[in-house]
């Protein structure tokens, strides 16, 4: 056993001003789940590949006289394998328990949480809710992550239950891999941009699909003079996220209920940096190109577009790996996950207006206080789909538009 085989304790999770107060046993439930998830991915997870190679693939070859053609054929075959079924059932239960444990902690203290959020939200012009913004089909078709009510559900009008439940359980799902404030992704963005463009201070940042803003707050704190706009369609998550940001001292961030497919309220070239962090896979085949195209329009010349996601399924990625990375799509209510990862995001960015030579990809790993929280590994066993390291698909928009100038 190595030290990293043990999850950090739930008591190390930072409690900002609207974080639910965990009782002893509630923290213990998350300690159990964090360690169960480590065990399921680290110890039992490799058994899936073994089952595939030793018996599922040979049986497939015998039956079809060929290898599987895609990840869907592998999934159909693996879903008949006893080991994979049992592992999947355990993992599904772990996700469901995480939701139950989070919701029971949040709902028993909902009055207090709503009260705290109100103190941070009332009278602040940095929270803009627009009830006419409807929840799009891709957010409403199923409850994402098996979160009852998803990001937009309410137990009663105006509450913060959805955001609070999402926030308090990220620790368990990632076994602490995203750090004390579950903001390892946002902190990684700050670290990356400071290395990439030392001294660069964007005037305005737009972060979309922010949910509770955990990855937007590090940007706002790192660039205190920058106007950060954080948008999402889910009011309950924004209410919580705004209160959370305020309590963490991020006052230069405005939470706006808006659908990123239509950014017409912002003029062309308004933002110096447009960002999505683990969001595009929660959209849809038609919405994604519209969003990237709108982001291109509102991005200023010389500005940065960056999308953090798990790696796309390229032709060089083995089909088995594509299959196991697809697990959350079908077992954890991420219905666009599979199709999204099969897209060529670079191609989508070119369609939106970038030239191919504007584009770059890079790896980004969660930045956490690694005295307490585990540092994401770059190789070895990983919890596919949840690893706290991402691929960044980015582009710097040309300062001058040479094609337009030439015309």
């Amino acid at each position, binding site marked *: 056993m190595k030290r990293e085989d*043990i999850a950090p304790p739930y008591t190390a999770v930072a409690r900002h001003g609207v974080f639910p107060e965990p009782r002893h046993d509630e923290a213990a439930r998350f300690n159990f789940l964090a360690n169960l998830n480590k065990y399921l991915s680290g110890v039992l997870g490799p*058994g899936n590949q073994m089952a595939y190679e030793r018996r599922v693939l040979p049986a497939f070859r015998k039956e079809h006289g060929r290898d599987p053609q895609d990840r869907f054929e592998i999934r159909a075959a693996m879903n008949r394998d006893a080991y994979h079924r049992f592992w*999947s059932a355990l993992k599904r239960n772990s996700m469901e328990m995480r939701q139950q444990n989070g919701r029971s902690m949040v709902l028993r203290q909902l009055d207090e949480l709503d009260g705290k959020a109100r103190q941070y939200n009332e009278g602040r012009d940095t929270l803009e809710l627009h009830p006419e913004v409807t929840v799009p089909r891709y957010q409403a078709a199923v409850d994402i992550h098996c979160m009852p009510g998803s990001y937009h559900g309410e137990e009663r009008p105006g509450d913060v239950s959805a955001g609070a439940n999402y926030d308090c359980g990220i620790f368990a799902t990632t076994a602490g891999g995203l750090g004390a404030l579950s903001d390892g992704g946002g902190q990684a963005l700050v670290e990356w941009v400071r290395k990439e463009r030392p001294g660069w201070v964007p005037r305005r940042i737009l972060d979309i699909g922010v949910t509770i803003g955990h990855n937007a707050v590090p940007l706002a704190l790192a660039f205190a003079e920058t106007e950060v706009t954080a948008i999402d369609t889910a009011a309950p998550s924004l209410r919580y996220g705004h209160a959370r940001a305020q309590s963490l001292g991020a006052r230069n961030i405005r939470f706006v209920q808006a659908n990123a497919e239509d950014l017409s309220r912002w003029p062309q070239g308004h933002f110096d940096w447009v960002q999505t962090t683990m969001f595009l896979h929660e959209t849809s085949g038609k919405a994604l190109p519209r969003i990237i195209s709108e982001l291109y329009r509102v991005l200023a010349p010389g500005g940065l577009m960056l999308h953090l996601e798990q790696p796309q399924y390229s032709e060089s990625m083995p089909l088995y790996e594509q299959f196991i990375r697809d697990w959350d799509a079908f077992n954890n209510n991420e219905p666009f996950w599979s199709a999204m990862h099969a897209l060529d995001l670079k191609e989508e960015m070119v369609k939106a207006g970038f030239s191919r030579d504007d584009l770059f990809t890079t790896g980004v790993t969660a930045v956490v206080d690694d005295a307490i929280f585990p540092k994401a590994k770059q190789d070895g066993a990983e919890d596919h789909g949840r690893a706290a390291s991402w691929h960044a698909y980015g582009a710097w928009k040309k300062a001058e538009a040479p094609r337009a100038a030439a015309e």
Partner: protein
Amino acid sequence: MSGDDIDWMLRANAKAKGKRPQYFDDPSLDRMLSMLMALVGEVAVLRERTDTIERLLEKNGSVSRADIESYEPDPEAAFERGAVIREYITRIMRGVQQDLEAMKESEPPVEEVSRELRDN
């Protein structure tokens, strides 16, 4: 406490929208596993609570419920408690882990070995 308008215990259990995959041929096995895993989790919680009480008693010679609720282990205690959870989980998962190990080699049934030893 949450307002009387919400039965939070029942609402904590709400079903997520989206048809649940069925993992076993008999759906009651899916149900049994969800109950079993909830129970497995609750035993871990009891064990951790006992550990908290032991540590508080060792340190203070007495314990109150408020002390238990506000207890925060230092890094070393947190690691020891995490290791206890991991040991507990591995004990629960023995059969699954053995299924995994069994895949590594193809073994003949013991009847076959028995016949072999009888005849050799």
